[in-house]
């Protein structure tokens, strides 16, 4: 399979800030890549370079075999972009917004209009179609914005945090829609802060932090790295944290994490409910007051804490400070 997106050694600086410090990634045609990272990681910067809005300082970026800097016009003709902040014209109605974007993609007028109606329908905006977008809620604007990026049926779609600010129901609807598009063969690069979202939608994920790729792989591969599940306890007394951690230590795959403030204890564990019963057995009858105890799947925070922690250690151990992807990411990862 060919790659629809190829990024090699991408570097971008803003003054003294290095937003991207050498990012490599590829997206196979027809697949979905989830680009994950905390605030300021460089996700939007990658998207902006790939969509020709920003020039890179070094490196190569190609979309459908076209260089984003040299062949910007050809790239623009085959991509759709939904930026992090909804870019709709507030004074135009939903329909007018879509028609305008369709016309600017050079669709014939009739096609622009019929596509506009079709997408308004698909995104549940038919009732609001003839109202100025000023009157739309945040979620409606977001949906209109995404509809606009789809009007010319782009082969490659960039979605920068498409569900941020959506309520849970709209988020589910959006997920369904993105999955449909992917099934239809659209190549999608999606940035998100939610591991769950990437898990649902993406075939592969790339995690970046401080402008470097710190991990890549499928959702399962990433979670394996963070040590599967965590056992989480909330205690009534902070003073119990130490003793409880001591008793449970042998169940944990890694160092337990203690938080005095919230009186929470978190341990990476393997296995399922048997871990819970074992934990309960060990704590029972020792006078510890446990308010809450449960197994939790790792979320992006966990992936993050683990990955960044490991990355730092590996870099020190191997003396390879300049290496964007330390060897820890090996094994499970590509």
């Amino acid at each position, binding site marked *: 399979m060919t790659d629809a997106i190829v990024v090699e050694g991408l570097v971008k600086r803003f003054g003294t800030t290095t937003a991207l410090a050498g990012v490599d990634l590829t997206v196979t045609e027809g697949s979905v890549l989830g680009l994950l990272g905390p605030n300021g990681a460089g996700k939007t910067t990658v998207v*902006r370079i790939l*969509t*020709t*809005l*920003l020039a890179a300082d070094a490196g190569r970026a190609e979309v459908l075999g076209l260089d984003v800097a040299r062949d910007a*016009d050809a790239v*623009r*003709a085959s*991509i759709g*972009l939904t*930026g992090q*902040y*909804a*870019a*709709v*014209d*507030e*004074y*135009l109605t939903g329909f*007018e917004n879509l028609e*305008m*974007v369709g*016309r*600017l*993609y*050079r669709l014939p007028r009739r096609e622009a209009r019929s596509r506009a109606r079709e997408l308004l329908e698909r995104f549940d905006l038919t009732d609001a179609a003839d109202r*100025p977008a000023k009157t739309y809620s945040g979620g409606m604007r977001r949906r209109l914005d995404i509809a*606009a990026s789809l009007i010319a049926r782009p082969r490659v779609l960039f979605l920068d945090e498409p569900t941020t600010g959506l309520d849970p129901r709209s988020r589910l609807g959006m997920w369904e829609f993105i999955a449909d598009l992917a099934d239809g063969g659209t190549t999608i690069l999606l940035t998100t802060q939610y591991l769950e979202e990437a898990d649902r939608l993406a075939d592969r994920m790339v995690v970046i932090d401080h402008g470097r790729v710190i991990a890549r792989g499928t959702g399962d591969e990433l979670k394996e790295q963070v040590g599967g599940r965590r056992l989480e306890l909330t205690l009534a007394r902070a003073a119990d944290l130490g003793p409880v951690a001591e008793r449970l230590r042998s169940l944990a795959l890694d160092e337990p994490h203690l938080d005095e403030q919230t009186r929470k204890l978190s341990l990476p564990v393997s296995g399922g409910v048997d871990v819970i019963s074992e934990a309960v057995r060990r704590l029972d009858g020792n006078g510890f007051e446990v308010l809450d105890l449960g197994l939790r799947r790792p979320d992006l925070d966990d992936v993050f804490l683990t990955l960044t922690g490991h990355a730092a250690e590996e870099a020190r151990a191997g003396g390879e400070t300049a290496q964007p992807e330390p060897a820890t990411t090996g094994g499970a990862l590509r």
Partner: protein
Amino acid sequence: MSATLVQTLADSAVITKRNLIKVKRVPDLIVFATLSPIMFVLLFRYVFGGAINLPPDINYAEFLLPGIFAQTVVFGSTVTGASIAEDLQKGLIDRFRSLPMSRSSVLVGRTVADLGLNAISIVVMAITGLIVGWRINSSFGEAVGGFLILLVFAFSISWLMAMVGLLVRTPEVVNNASFIVIFPLTFVANTFVPLETFPSVLRTFAEWNPVSAVVQAARELFGNTSEIVPVPDVWSLQNPVLYTLLWTAIFLAAFVPLAVRAYQRTASR
């Protein structure tokens, strides 16, 4: 016509339409485009007109109206800068820049829409002027020329303002910044008072100020000149139409390419 030019025009038409829809939906813009010129005409005709030290026997309305026309369209063209900055802030410029549309169309569509707004202002002012005693004493062709030269000059200022909008990026700041430039340009001129009333340094500035030339050109083309207010013997004011067109050409030649380049490089953040 080449294919690219046709596409540029088609894209620009789409953007112009978009901008005019906004004018229709935001009544403030219409109010600004029509009411404030009326207010200007009335204010200068009846309030300041008496206070300004004009030669006796002069026809106030005929002297003042071309000046008010010029001032209003020049102010009107500052709208371009604020609107571009607003589009930039709201992320629309990013949206447009990610589309396969021609590179100059967003700016062409903007400046053309603002030209339309200025045309509305000028019609409203002309009607108000006729009511308060302003008259056109020239041929139909010359009068049309008078309106056109005002609009074309304002159009070239719109391109300067477009670039300011792209560089300054905050609508409110664009407005304040443009007033700093536009106020002296429109007041240190023959807009409201004869040039001989200025002290010498200001007078030289006013004589070569392109706004003075536009005003003088409009007075000539509308037949609003008078023996009572002699035209200073400087080339710029003896050849006001030519001098105005020269400035218009310079503004367009400089700011169309500069603004398009700034547009291509700009980004919402």
